[in-house]
């Protein structure tokens, strides 16, 4: 919810560098200036690439590669040696490269000129000393930004202090910019149509992220109600953060564990102070990627132990390596698949490479056996679609010495399956007796249920986890969990939205795992939830026809 004044932003299509600000010195000095600027851009990109969302992170890794590319570097060096300033050389060489790419015959490759321009923009910003997105940096507080679309570069220069809301004429909620804005906590709505770009700047407006709309010049009464809502949200946040380290208990006395999702060692910086009860989802891909050999058992034990210690919680949930054709690793043969999301990934891949599976399981069992270990190691099996896959994992486990002793009721080792394929939800009553817990991955469950790719902006809105079809599958998994008396956790993005918690609780979810910044908010949502009311809400939601109806149940006007 953002309330402020409209400002129309035009992303400059081709930055022209003003020669007025530069003073050319010797080529050696100019080259040094270029290297300094490159170092700063490199650091900037490295930081951006460390972001939680792997979809976004990848763009910045590619941009880093472009930044250090020989064509760019040699071109700039040659121009500087001819007596050009570092800034002009950068401007010239990147423009030439952009031109070169634009002239390529193949559209995909031609459109990569955007990426070169993006890197050029960053370099020039440092070289010229004036920010080329000065427009964005200099916005007054309380600005509502209107734009056709924003580049990732633009988005990383937004300041949450001044920009209180964004309305984009184009773009879709999954586009990179939207993901970036969300991570900054700026309310953003998309696809509002180009008409908004004609709105006179300076008008009062509200970006209502809850209802997904832009209200221009709201009448005093409506503005008042928006102001109150915003105030309520702010108060909620403040209250939540002051109780972040206390347990979350519902009004009817149910303790709900609120865990954190972790993608990398760096994420632990945020987790430590978040108030998380433990780790509900450690994605282990970071240990396996960007290297030429898989990590050894000893390396893995060290990595898991470190995370568990830093989290200082009871439970450490480790998802087994979940890779597939879209994110290959060097030491496994590359599999050509026309649709990697329906291909050999997760447990399917691990069962084809038993040595990888065994090593990871062995490391996790060993951690639970260590003398200083306190708590529970939960092993989470990804991408399960058949009961036999669980049987096969259990067979591998049973062949590892020590497994049986560790895996006892009340012991330090538990095995669970990820419910992220509709087949797993439908067979949840068959899976539940075999395992110790469920974890529902709603991002994939939604996209597989709706047959809609969540990174394809044309269909992404179909893949809403609030769709009654998805909710029914979540409900089935919860029911099966309840029958078998095992915890049912949820770890998709939807769990991080505090307004959705009552619905999930009503469906039978017993634990949640969310990104670190959401832990306090979701804990507070737990404290405001009443079991009976939640179950009633879930009942209504399961009878809805579409996601929008469910949305209205959660946010009554």
């Amino acid at each position: 919810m953002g309330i402020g004044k409209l400002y129309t932003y035009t992303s400059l299509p081709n930055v022209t560098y003003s020669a007025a600000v530069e003073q050319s010195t010797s080529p050696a000095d100019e080259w040094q200036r270029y290297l300094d600027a490159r170092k700063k851009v490199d650091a900037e990109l490295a930081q951006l690439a460390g972001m939680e969302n792997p979809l976004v992170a990848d763009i910045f890794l590619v941009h880093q590669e472009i930044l250090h590319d020989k064509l760019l570097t040699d071109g700039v060096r040659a121009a500087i040696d001819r007596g050009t300033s570092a800034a002009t050389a950068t401007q010239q060489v990147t423009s030439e490269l952009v031109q070169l790419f634009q002239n390529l015959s193949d559209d995909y490759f031609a459109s990569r000129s955007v990426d070169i321009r993006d890197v050029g923009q960053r370099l020039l910003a440092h070289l010229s000393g004036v920010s080329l997105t000065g427009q964005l940096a200099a916005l007054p507080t309380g600005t509502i930004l209107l734009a056709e679309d924003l580049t990732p570069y633009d988005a990383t220069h937004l300041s949450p202090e001044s920009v209180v809301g964004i309305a984009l004429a184009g773009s879709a909620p999954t586009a990179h910019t939207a993901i970036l804005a969300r991570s900054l906590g700026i309310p953003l709505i998309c696809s509002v149509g180009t008409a908004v770009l004609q709105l006179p700047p300076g008008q009062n407006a509200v970006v209502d992220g809850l209802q997904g709309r832009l209200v221009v010049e709201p009448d005093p009464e409506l503005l008042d109600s928006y102001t109150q809502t915003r105030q309520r949200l702010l108060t909620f946040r403040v209250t939540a953060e002051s109780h972040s380290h206390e347990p979350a208990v519902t009004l009817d006395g149910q303790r709900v564990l609120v865990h954190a999702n972790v993608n990398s060692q760096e994420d632990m910086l945020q987790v430590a102070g978040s108030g998380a009860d433990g780790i509900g989802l450690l994605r282990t891909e970071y240990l396996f990627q960007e290297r030429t050999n898989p990590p050894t058992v000893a390396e893995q034990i060290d990595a898991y132990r470190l995370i568990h210690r830093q989290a200082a919680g009871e439970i450490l949930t480790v998802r087994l390596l979940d890779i597939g054709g879209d994110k290959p690793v060097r030491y496994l043969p590359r599999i050509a698949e026309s649709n990697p999301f329906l291909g050999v990934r997760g447990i399917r891949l691990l069962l084809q490479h038993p040595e990888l599976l065994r090593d990871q399981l062995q490391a996790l069992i060993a951690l639970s056996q260590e003398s200083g270990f306190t708590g529970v190691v939960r092993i989470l099996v990804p991408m399960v679609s058949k009961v036999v896959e669980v049987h096969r994992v259990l067979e591998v486990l049973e062949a590892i010495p020590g497994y049986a002793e560790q895996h006892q009721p009340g012991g330090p080792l538990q095995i669970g399956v990820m419910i992220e394929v509709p087949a797993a939800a439908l067979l949840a009553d068959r899976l539940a007796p075999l395992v110790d817990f469920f974890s529902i991955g709603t991002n994939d469950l939604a996209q597989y249920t709706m047959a809609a790719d969540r990174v394809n902006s044309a269909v992404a809105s179909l893949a809403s986890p609030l769709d009654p079809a998805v909710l029914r599958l979540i409900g089935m998994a919860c029911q099966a969990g309840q029958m078998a008396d095992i915890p049912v956790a949820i770890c998709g993005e939807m769990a991080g939205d505090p307004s959705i918690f009552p619905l999930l609780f009503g469906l039978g979810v017993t634990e949640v795992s969310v990104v670190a910044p959401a832990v306090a908010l979701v804990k507070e949502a737990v404290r405001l939830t009443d079991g009976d009311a939640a179950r009633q809400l879930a009942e209504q939601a399961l009878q809805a026809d579409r996601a929008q109806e469910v949305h209205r149940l959660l946010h009554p006007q």
Partner: protein
Amino acid sequence: MDRANTGVSPTPTEGNEHSATVTVKDPQGLHLRTSKDVVRVASQYQAEITAQNLSRSSIQVDVKSILQLMQLQARQGHVLLLQAAGPDAADALNALCVLF
């Protein structure tokens, strides 16, 4: 797995020079992310490595440059000729072949 790409034993041409042909298997072609991986792997080797898109009769480009690789405009099914020269040329080609 693609036999043609992984079954390649790089053919020694002269001294420390080796070459191999690979077929692009990715339905999206040799896109930015794969190219980034190719550059990163190639850069771990001392050998000079070039690629040429035989399907487009392109010029030879430096495999250690992402901007040059992109100019191959390699689509699924395109055949690329990789050539490496240097002490670790054969290893470099072996490591690269599986990426396409």
